[in-house]
């Protein structure tokens, strides 16, 4: 009995903490060399030759990288803004309401991009857009943007719906009692309360669009590379720390966004 140095804890499982800490270590350890070698002065991702911002400069001055970065951001901004607006409307139409026929089908439609494997959606879009391209001759950005908008909708929808479900109708009823028009009570009461959810949804959609590889790879026309598809193409060649530099920047953007979303969604309504 007295041999055990620790008091008996009902929560303790031998080895679990060790496995868990190993898991956390394994989650972050592979990212370390990626970030470190982005600051390498040498040409290689294996040999350390001193600290330098050389590859960040190289990436910034590379026209292909620059145009891909701008394209990524533009597509992500448009797709996330449109997807968030549409998702807010659907959330208002499916939450805090008496059940109605078709509600389940709407849920299914909205969440469908989460259930179908990305490669399947990508191929289906490739086929569909090829038909349109053939008959209209249009090869612009509408394909990429509409595809991104569609798969961003469920990601924007989830936090907005979660926020809305936690909101009481009392304030809106009070506004209506005070002769506010439905529109006025929406803009002055519902929307401000819903805003943290909408912001979280928009940022989630932005990150998802910015990071997308598979669907973009299949949908893009010639010369429409985004940063991730540019990187995917580069991985086939000899890899230089330029890729590390781009990855580190994207990593930073994701971490900042996720941190903000984390704090936004923790605030209670």
């Amino acid at each position: 009995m007295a041999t055990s140095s620790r008091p008996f804890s009902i929560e303790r499982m031998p080895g679990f903490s060790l496995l868990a800490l190993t898991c956390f270590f394994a989650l972050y350890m592979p990212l370390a060399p990626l970030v470190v070698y982005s600051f390498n002065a040498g040409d290689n991702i294996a040999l350390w030759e001193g600290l330098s911002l050389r590859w960040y400069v190289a990436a910034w001055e590379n026209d292909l990288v620059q145009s891909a970065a701008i394209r990524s951001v533009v597509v992500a901004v448009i797709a996330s803004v449109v997807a968030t607006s549409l998702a807010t409307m659907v959330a208002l139409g499916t939450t805090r309401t008496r059940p109605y026929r078709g509600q389940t089908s709407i849920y299914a439609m909205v969440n469908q991009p989460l259930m179908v494997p990305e490669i399947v959606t990508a191929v289906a879009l490739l086929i569909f857009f090829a038909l349109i391209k053939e008959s209209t001759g249009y090869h612009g950005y509408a394909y990429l943007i509409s595809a991104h908008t569609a798969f961003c909708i469920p990601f924007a929808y989830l936090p907005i719906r979660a926020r809305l479900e936690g909101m009481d109708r009392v304030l809106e009823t009070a506004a209506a009692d005070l002769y506010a028009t439905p529109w006025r009570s929406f803009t002055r009461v519902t929307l401000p309360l819903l805003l943290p959810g909408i912001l979280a949804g928009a940022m989630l959609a932005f990150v998802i669009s910015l990071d997308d590889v598979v669907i973009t790879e299949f949908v893009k026309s010639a010369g429409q590379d985004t940063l991730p598809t540019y990187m995917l193409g580069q991985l086939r060649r000899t890899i230089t720390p330029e890729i590390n530099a781009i990855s580190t920047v994207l990593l930073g953007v994701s971490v900042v966004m996720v941190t903000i979303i984390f704090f936004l969604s923790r605030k209670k309504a």
Partner: protein
Amino acid sequence: MSAEQDSSTESFESLEAHAYQLEVRRNLLLSTPALIVLFCAASGPLLIMLVFSFLTPGDYGGIKWQFSTEAWFQVAFYRDIFDETVSIADAHLSIFWRSVKLSFLTTLVAFVLGFPTAYFIATRSPETRNLWLFLVTIPFWTNLLIRTFAILEIIRNQGLVNNVLIALGVIDQPLDMLYTDIAILLGMTYVYIPLMILPIYASMERFDFQLVEAAYDLYATRWRVLVRVIVPLVKPGVIAGSILVFVPSLGAYVTPRVLGGGKHLMIGNLIELQFGQGRNWPLGAALSLSLLVIVMVALIFYVRSAQKEGGAHGH
């Protein structure tokens, strides 16, 4: 008098029905724009793909508008070009088998590591719990390509893993890990493990440790408490986590492409080949739909077992 009352309740009911109709109409109007976008750029194209899987491949990609079931036949069978003899399409079946095998192993490894991690987080104090949870969420929202690339860098011949093992004297020649099934397994586990941890944690969070105390009072060993008390009670989380890892693993495209080096294909890569070098769009469509069917079967299995669990607890 009574007739008047009747008509007033009737009119109240009809007013009520009218309000309901207005509400439903408002809901449908609010949902329509999103549904149109989703139909055009997500669901609708799947139907077109179904049509394409029954057409004849064009000479340089694309299709000819000629009905054919050949593509579906080719998913599992191979017809010799010269003498038309039919045999099983070994290449396709071995890729399907590799996909199922690797996805299953990924799920298993993710569970073995993810379960203790979720348990660890759930048994922290409420303040630190969120921090640990946050540490799991960050990699989850980081670009999948970047995380795959990170794995590529550390398992290369001059990568961190080999360098450390050589420095420790465990091996004297670097291990060829890159471009193997093991590399894909490692990459997929790394990329998808947060999807295992988060749902298990979600069902553990509400776990009542008095049950564990009761089990210990009844002289249960730790192992018995784990297997007979904790695991059965967090089973819904385990099933959800397993599905969330298994399904994207099965449809993985980026990870096997980067870590399998074009030699160790999974279904996703086989599909891509039909739109690139292979130039057989109907076959690509049929393969995609086959993948979709497997995924749907897994999801139906999940919904069924979730309902069964819910029912069992309801009694």
